[in-house]
């Protein structure tokens, strides 16, 4: 299977894992994270390698995280035991405290511009 084909299934799974649980109380049990620290950790812990420096995803390696990460329980569970091709992160190399900072940074990312506001995409 090519990386692109894998990415499609990864995207689907991740979407279900993160967004599908929105009915649950959004941040139940979520530790308090520091978004500024999370921005640095996102780079230092290599999340950017697959998901892009703006968490935009969309390439052949990893899906978008910006605007998609919603629920701490689903997010942290997936990072520890990914269902698909993502590199697993144990608590030894990425403690919950650091993961919470990354979670906070991802949730702090602003909404992208609307498609129709971008002439290149709307033409």
């Amino acid at each position, binding site marked *: *299977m*090519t990386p692109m*084909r894998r990415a499609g*299934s990864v995207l689907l799974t991740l979407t279900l894992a993160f967004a599908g649980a929105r009915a649950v109380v959004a941040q139940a049990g979520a530790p308090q994270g520091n978004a500024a620290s999370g921005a640095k950790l996102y*780079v*230092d*812990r*290599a999340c*950017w*390698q*697959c998901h*892009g*420096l*703006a*968490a*935009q*995803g*969309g*390439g*052949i*390696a*990893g899906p*978008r995280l*910006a*605007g998609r990460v919603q629920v701490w329980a689903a997010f942290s569970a997936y990072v520890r*035991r*990914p269902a*698909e*091709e*993502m*590199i*697993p*992160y*144990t608590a*030894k*190399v*990425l403690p919950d405290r650091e993961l919470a900072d990354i979670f906070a940074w991802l949730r702090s990312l602003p909404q*992208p*511009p*609307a*498609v129709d506001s*971008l002439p*290149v*995409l709307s*033409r």
Partner: protein
Amino acid sequence: MAKPGSRVDRRKFLRGAAAAALTAPVIPAAAQPPADAPRPTAPAISPAQASQALAAEAAPLAAEVDALTVDNPGSDFMVDVLKTLGFDYVIANPASSFRGLHESFINYGGNASPEWLTCAHEQAAVNIANGYFAVAGKPMAVVTFAPSGLQHAAMGIFGAFSGRTPTYLLCANIPGGEDRRPLFDWGPHAMTDPAAMVRDMLKWDDTPASLQHFAESAVRAYRMAMMEPRGPVMLVVDAALQEDSVHDRGALRIPKLALASPPAGDANAVAEVAKLLVAAENPVVLAGDVARDEAGMRLLVELAETLAVPVQGGGRGMPNQHPLAGGGNVRSADVILALNEDALYGRLNRFRDQTVRGAAPLTKADAKILSISSYDLNVRSNYQNVERFQEVSLAIAADPQATLPSLIEACKKLITPERRRALDARSSTLAAASAQALERARVEATYGWDASPITLQRLAAEVWDVIKGKDWASVGANGGRLWNADKFYRTMGAVNGGGIGGSLPIAIGAALAHKKSGRLCVRFQPDGDMLYMATSLWTATHHRIPMLIVMHNNRAYHQEVMHLQRMANRRQRGVELAAHGLPGATISDPDIDFAQLARSMGAYAEGPIASPKDLRPALLRAIARVEKGEVALLDTRTQPR
């Protein structure tokens, strides 16, 4: 062997000439007198010495000396043969083993049909030929020599083998020990069996021992290469056969070429496939490289529309924004039709390379898997390009494009009006899903829109916006779903360069094939790949092959960066170090100035461009240069993926 008289005693002459060259005095440049120095007076010779010199000059050639001045060299005949095969181009990095053939192409053949292209590396030469075929649909001849040139060419040949490209190789060799120049030819220009080095990757090869043999094998090689499934072929060309005079040109005959028609599927088996497809509730077509031309694309579309079946893959054989392109799911499919799908196992199984390694089927247990493939007709054992074995319910060893007309006809006969209504309803559902997927792709592109380095989605969108009104063609790595690849020639087929370093020469060969039509050729170029064969840029500028190259310059071998990260995570060490790229996987410090590199070879270039707002004006300037016939490169700094 040549006929008696055609190469009489030439080897002895060569031996004598070489010996003379070795014994002749050589005056070092530094020891020579300046040009304005008084000319020394010639030393006087005695009458006896003069008489002796005159006698030596006028004496008949010694028995062991051969005359090299010929009127009708064998390589002229070889050019006659190759001209009948219709090559537009022949490409090479020059070498003495084929000096005879090279001279004949230029002076005897007029350097036209085929025209000789100059390349700085044999691997690039083979890949330019691979890319040329992908667009032109006809092979380019590559000339190289054994062993050195052939070893350089090997990765390109592997690409032709993997991509089933009928690249036509002529490998010069000096088999005769007496023909080899001492000091020069014994090591780097001579082998016992050159083809052995690459035979596992060739569809066919031969070593003609005479000119008539060459003519017959040249025509056979062409037909073998072009017959489905296609593949690279090679003739080993004796250097002496090139250089010796033809004894009797009238006795030599060039056979006529007749290409073999591709094999179509057995009628009974095709009828069974049609029956299963028409009855299926959730069929999916998995298409590899199916279409050879625009007609093949129309057939694949007709199959999809007849059956309301989604087509995954298909490359240039399926318009990427067609409502039936890219939809469906093998997990829910009840019938799966694979057409020339050489990665079938990977498409139908889930493989994990994570904390655990394992594989499991994605398909339903009762799914019917059908295969129509010509790839079963030519399998090599050494190079494992067959993937893990995938069970199928029914396999037809045949060319899909040749089989599609009968399959479509068989399906149409089975579709009742009631079934048609059901298929139309399914078609509407799939079309709606396709439209939603396209809209999602537009929304996805907005994320990281203003990021620097530039996201690949922004880069693709900006390039698309300036080319969509033109007659464009992607010569590698197009912009994905947002680009409307509505014609067969918009993208390339399953062309393969054998690994990193192959794709730039492939793009140049493809752009050469598009040149006559005046299409705007565009390529996204990874930095790691560029570094392997950057010199092929000079081939593009030298031969005036216009194309736009937009760099995916992420300053890393990023695939390996991610693999090393995977290792660090598994071993729970050095994760932060790996996050910034372990030594050995990055291409920075210093960053490479690809614009300067391109300019050094005569291309128009700008960069580095790291801000997305600078993209559009740079693209417009670069396209203006390409439309004047130039090569233009934009060194764009991009996100890793």
